[in-house]
């Protein structure tokens, strides 16, 4: 007899694609949900900044210097009379833009390198030695050097940060590609005539995405911190832009008497990175294949 007599009871409850399962698990994970909510608040806050504040971020109101948080100025003002609440909100745009853009390009290039090294094995040794070198360089030192050479501005800082983030992605992707490559379904794809391009696109990449996603959140966190550090020493975003790290730097001189100027942007950094870390943890758990039934 062809086929078999199966009652519908024998089909495992439809689980759906791996993607759908992951999303489902993510939604149940309290940590991840907290992280997502925090990030949403930050993202929405920075997008809708003009609606949430009437002051511009560079707007100086001389009679309002050094005010502590009050009805008029939710988070107070700094030494130039600029409203800190506005600066924090608009600053979010910088932070998120930098984090996302740097991470995105680092992921793109890193994945390409990882695939060339792991799948084609061409230049594997060379590429890995180069990544070793970059990973050995302290990020801060590298960032400062590049920006000093190219000129201190946001764009150059982003270039430096992207370059230093690529090696991690490359390593991770390469490792995962090596694992996936040995699976029988890759051999099967070859035996049905799939070209290398097809194999990479349909068979390797989807199965490599999990570590890339996790690394994405880790890299974003690191980028935020690094960009704050570089801006803090003047090697990144330039005044009067309300980048949070820069705000901390500018508020340094008044730390004893008007601590809110430096501390509040620091709190903003902390909250954002907390959200990202929580999301990253949650994603890692949700993506863990061992938790599959």
């Amino acid at each position: 007899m062809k086929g078999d007599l199966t009652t519908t009871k024998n089909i495992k409850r439809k689980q759906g694609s791996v993607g759908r399962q992951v999303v489902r698990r993510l939604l149940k994970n309290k940590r991840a949900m907290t992280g997502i909510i925090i990030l949403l608040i930050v993202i929405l806050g920075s997008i809708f900044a003009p609606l949430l504040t009437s002051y511009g971020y560079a707007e100086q109101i001389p009679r309002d210097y050094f005010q502590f948080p009050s009805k008029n100025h939710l988070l107070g003002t700094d030494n130039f009379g600029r409203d800190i609440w506005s600066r924090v909100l608009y600053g979010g745009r910088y932070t998120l833009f930098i984090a996302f853009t740097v991470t995105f390009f680092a992921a793109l290039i890193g994945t390409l390198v990882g695939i060339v090294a792991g799948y084609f094995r061409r230049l594997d040794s060379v590429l890995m030695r180069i990544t070793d070198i970059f990973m050995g360089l302290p990020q801060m030192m590298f960032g400062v050097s590049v920006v000093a050479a190219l000129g201190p501005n946001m764009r150059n800082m982003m270039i430096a940060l992207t370059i230093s983030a690529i090696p991690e992605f490359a390593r991770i992707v390469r490792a995962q590609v090596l694992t996936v490559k040995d699976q029988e379904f890759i051999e099967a794809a070859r035996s049905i005539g799939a070209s290398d391009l097809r194999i990479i696109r349909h068979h390797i990449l989807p199965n490599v995405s999990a570590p890339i996603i996790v690394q994405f959140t880790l890299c974003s966190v690191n980028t935020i911190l690094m960009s704050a550090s570089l801006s803090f020493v003047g090697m990144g975003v330039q005044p009067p832009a309300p980048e949070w790290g820069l705000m901390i730097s500018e508020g340094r001189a008044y730390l004893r008497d008007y601590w809110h100027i430096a501390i509040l942007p620091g709190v903003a950094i902390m909250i954002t990175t907390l959200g990202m870390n929580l999301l990253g943890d949650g994603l890692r758990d949700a993506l863990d294949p061992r938790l599959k039934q």
Partner: protein
Amino acid sequence: MDTHEQPVLEVKDLVVRYYVEGSVVEAVNGISFSLYKGKTLGLIGETGAGKTTTALSLLRLVPDPPGVIESGEILYKGKNVLSLPEKEVRQYRGNDVAMIFQDPMSSLNPVMHVGDQIRESIEIHENVSKYEALDRAKRMLESVEIPSSRYYEYPHQFSGGMKQRVVIAMALACSPQVLIADEPTTALDVTIQAQVLDMMRQLIDEYKMSMLMITHDLGVVAEICDFVAIIYAGEIVESGTIEDIFNNTKHPYTIGLFNSLPDLDSPTSRLNAIPGLMPNPSDLPTGCRFHPRCQHATTLCSTEKPHKEDVSATHTVSCWNYKEIERQ
């Protein structure tokens, strides 16, 4: 054979469930069986039948969470293992009851000398000096036909069959009364399997151990077991002596298993496959668990679970229609 003697290990109405992501997996649903001194019981079942869960329960190794031993008793020489305090259970494991798993590679520590792994098991359970333990470990290696000069080698230096023999040596090092072997030869080549089974049989005779051999291979059972129990969807559907089961098969599932084997002696053009699949343990059918796949099923079978009936003094079966069924 004398079944009136006291069993060494007795399982009574064991029920084990797993609670996973909102659903309940009914892995073991009321199993009872006994192991007698010097005799081997073969537990036959396919994937998902609950054999490994049963084996783990005997050693209280069921991961908790998500697994829970809901009810039942496991009596080792009269004492209920399930109610022993943790300290005594550790003493019991390895010393009174030992287990061999299917994949020797994962039972062996890859960074430890094989000899030391045997010695460790002796040192944990017995109060002997380091030298004596070393000596005994070497002798155990010899008893599984591995030269004791290989004591200091690592697992990766051994072939599959030899690794499994090391695992057997580890299990037998403390002369346990009961050996649980979970598919010990499934991963081995057939000629190596023959060697290992032969060796196991010799050792069991020598140590007068009881063995629970878990397998899906009816051929292995025919070679080495005295009694047989067939497990399906967490329940024992038929049990008896080896003659009962092989020569007087009664349960439709057991008959189906025999019929789906390609026979070396007779030419057949088509195998009699059992249609369908083992049911999902979180969604078991009503009535007799096998009824959706059974060609003899009646309405009664779909609503009422069959009782255990005695075919003979040694042979029991759980089927409403066993009297009408004959194996061709």
